[in-house]
């Protein structure tokens, strides 16, 4: 049993190598940005280890550093982290038979990357007639991906904080660009269909007007409005096409 768990954990680790490679620059970038925003090392490491959500951490970095309203920071973080809800839901059926405590503890390392790799692997194994339907084996594979990626993220964040201290003055412009540039790149690689690019473009421009009207809540409100509008139009479109 223990040996099988270790084998599956190692399989997960191997599958996670591309995630580690992607996590190294992004975690270092986050550490640099957080240091640049005036967060201390313990705050930076605590946030990476306890919140463990790249976009969520990025979302609250500005408001947190500027000591904006607590509620505003928490709502921004919560909205960003809502995406874990469907990911966690999709993984749950593969952990059949696993006791509640290990399930709850392991859910902490669910991220977009540590969801996609195990999910696709489990789907592939499900289609193979010989594959065992073992919740603990699947959990071991998931932890092999999730725990190692988590460790890379936290270590990279601390390293980034140290790197930022060595930067010469005048680098603010570059530091300010790193994460927005990285997230724009992530978005453009993942965006599909017609609705998503329009929503992205709409919220990119509407946020400026939103922040101009209300620096605290304006961009949040415009993002939700643009997303809901795009979603509504797509829903209406698909219903209209079904009725014909």
């Amino acid at each position, binding site marked *: 049993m223990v040996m099988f768990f270790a084998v599956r954990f190692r399989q997960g680790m191997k599958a996670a190598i591309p995630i580690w490679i992607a996590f190294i620059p992004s975690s270092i970038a986050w550490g640099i940005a957080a240091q640049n925003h005036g967060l201390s090392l313990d705050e930076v490491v605590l946030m990476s280890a306890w919140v463990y959500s790249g976009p969520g951490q990025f979302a609250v970095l500005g408001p947190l550093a500027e000591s904006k309203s607590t509620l505003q920071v928490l709502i921004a973080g919560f909205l960003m982290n*809502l995406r874990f809800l469907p990911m966690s839901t999709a993984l749950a059926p593969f952990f059949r038979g696993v006791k509640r405590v290990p399930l709850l503890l392991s859910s902490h390392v669910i991220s977009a990357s540590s969801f996609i790799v195990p999910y696709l692997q489990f789907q592939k194994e499900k289609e193979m007639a010989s594959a065992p339907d073992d919740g603990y084996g699947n959990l071991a594979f998931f932890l092999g991906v999730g725990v190692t990626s988590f460790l890379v993220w936290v270590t990279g964040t601390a390293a980034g904080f140290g790197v930022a201290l060595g930067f010469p003055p005048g680098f603010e412009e570059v530091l300010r660009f790193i994460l927005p540039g990285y997230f724009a790149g992530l*978005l453009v690689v993942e965006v599909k269909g017609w609705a998503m690019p329009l929503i992205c473009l709409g919220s990119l421009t509407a946020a400026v007007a939103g922040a101009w009207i209300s620096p605290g809540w304006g961009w949040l409100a415009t993002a939700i409005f643009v997303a809901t509008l795009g979603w509504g139009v797509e829903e209406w479109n698909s219903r209209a096409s079904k009725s014909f």
Partner: protein
Amino acid sequence: MEFSRIQIILIMGLMAFAVRALPQILFVGGKFPEALDRWLRYVSYALICSIISITLFMVGARFEADAAPRRGLALALAIFIAHRTKSAVTGMIAGVLLVLILSWLH
């Protein structure tokens, strides 16, 4: 009621944990309606875009008109390179290099 940064981070982590852990208890074997799943995804993407925008172009309620063209150009290059190479990191590096060159020229 205002909290310290550490307290805010702790509360935020608890909320993130709840979002990750609750489905493991409540929705085992279940599935979200497709429409709701898509709305959640759209809101996340729209929030990321808004954050990109305000980080690059705004300081509080002020639009940074002086720096906006070079940052916008660097963002466009980052998007273009990421799209062509299918690598967000490559796009980011290209954008960083351009923003560095443009700010030095400026």
